[in-house]
């Protein structure tokens, strides 16, 4: 690979619980990836525009508030509209099992629920880069 894997870690919605997003950002960085952390309360438009600008390989969405069914479809649609659907989207946070199939159908590569190790996420990204 000619360059390190680039990951945008984003916190969409109104939720301010950023412990997970920050830990993941740091773990990916320690694993040699280039990480851009957006900070809080990003709209889908802001996230996709940052992904475009930063030329990332992955977008990691951290959502703990239950708003994933409203936010993820908008992100996926905007990726398509901007012709960057090759950017892989992973979701981390509190997502009920029942919602996972529909997120995957929309093109989400993986959903990581509470208790997932940093190592598992790093491995997944490396294997799918």
């Amino acid at each position, binding site marked *: 690979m000619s360059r390190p894997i680039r990951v945008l870690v984003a916190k969409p919605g*109104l939720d301010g619980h950023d412990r997970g997003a920050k830990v993941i950002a740091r773990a990916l*960085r320690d694993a040699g990836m280039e990480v851009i952390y957006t900070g809080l309360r990003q709209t889908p438009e802001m996230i996709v525009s940052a992904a475009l600008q930063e030329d990332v390989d992955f977008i990691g969405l951290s959502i703990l508030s239950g*708003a994933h069914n*409203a936010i993820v479809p908008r992100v996926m649609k905007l990726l398509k509209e901007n012709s960057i659907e090759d950017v892989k989207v992973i979701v981390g946070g509190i997502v009920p099992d029942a919602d996972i199939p529909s997120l995957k159908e929309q093109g989400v590569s993986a959903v990581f629920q509470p*208790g997932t190790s940093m190592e598992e996420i790093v491995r997944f990204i490396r294997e799918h880069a």
Partner: protein
Amino acid sequence: MPDRDFTTISGTPVNELYTPADLGNGATAFDPAVELGEPGCFPYTRGIHPDMYRGRLWTMRQFSGFATPEETNRRYRYLLEQGQTGLSVAFDLPTLMGYDADHEMAAGEVGKCGVSISSLADMEALFDSIPLERISTSMTISSPAAMLWAMYLVAAEKQGARWENLSGTIQTDILKEYIAQKEYIYPPRPSMRLVVDTFEFGARHTPRFNTISISGYHIREAGATALQELAFTLRDGVEYVQWGIERGLDVDEFVPRLSFFFDAHNDFFEEIAKFRAARKIWAHVMRDRFGASSERTWKLRFHTQTAGCSLTAQQPRVNIVRTAIQALAAVLGGTQSLHTNALDEALALPTEETALLALRTQQVIAYESGVTDTADPLGGSYFLERLTLDLEKGCYDYFDRIDAMGGMIPAIERGFPMREIAEASYRYQQAVEKKEKIIIGVNAFQAEGEPVETLYIDHRVAEKQAGRLKQLRADRNNQQAEKALDDLARAADQGGNMMPSIVEAVRAYATLGEMCDTLKKVFGVYQEAAVT
């Protein structure tokens, strides 16, 4: 299994045995009269009442709120019927951020993490048939605390209650929002002005209401150690007291209405030591730093919630056990009120069944365990007293560093507490990955657990709340609402206390979003520099 690790969950080494020698000797020997005092006496290390729970048990106050005000009202009435002794409102994210339920930014979030409240009409529905003059209510909201409190006061008044008889707590703790929970709207200084406005208004009109709950809970949940939780929370308290004094308030008049809120995490003795150290430090700071002379000012009163971040989605029933141990630590630490988490809270908001089991957990401690019969039963334990002394010292060291930065607001502006917390939370996560710290069901003793049924809140809640707002705007006297909002803008601009104008705007059924937007125009909005 890896080699066992003998440090607390915060990473503090623990000795194999503690003896009197660990408490110093000769001239530096531990003097119980100085370090502990009697329960109910300065410095209150052993508790704020001489008879502790014999006189009165803690308030069993389960944090609860979801979906529409009507649905939450039904849950409250159910919990009260089951022996709960106080209410505690969980608001949804749009409410916490000052957005009406029909705002674009509220999409997907209405009623999800708490109840949706956009106006006085919602607040009236929330407490329908619950006599507010007889029950104490805690409201977990900080940035728009003044607006929600005003809604509560007016809703109570409409029930015929007198403000001076109302008791409860409004969180109002904006500093911990910048540090940890991040539900802030305005920049720190105008936010602090709004906080002091509530202190001043409360001292005059609601003598039994706590106008702030200075919260370590969210700081801990964001990944802080026990020491960081203790130090940042108490230093936030110092900041509020300083701002109150600068406004011209008398410490012995407003400080007795400041209350605290801590986390009860897994590490049993460290947590008990934290609660004891908190009381001791606060008593000293109030007397020695601020010259307070009233015992009511010296006494730190606190609410406790068991640690949400300790709950696991894996084998969720194990959470009942974690919660019971944490709740026991809170009681042995002398808490005044307690929330016990439900077993399903790593997955969703609790169902009626799991909420009841959580309440029953406290009732078992209160009525069956016998730990309530004597005050501070663990006082004098060499280990516990050593931990308490070490936390106290560590806390004063943090105070010195924050004082040297010019106080908590400059410390926040340079990202100091946030960096300390991020560092601690990453260290802890690494310890979990290396199995130095064990989480049953996650990195040890994994098993396919039976799934539990969870509460699901669908999009119809948002539609219902949006419809209600449309109706409200059609039914109210819009001219009156607009005038009240203009008055609020003027008060904000001119620098007087904003509470009276907020109360008037609430009476005119101005919405939460309208009030918060009015202040945004005057104060601007805050954006943090993200620290990773």
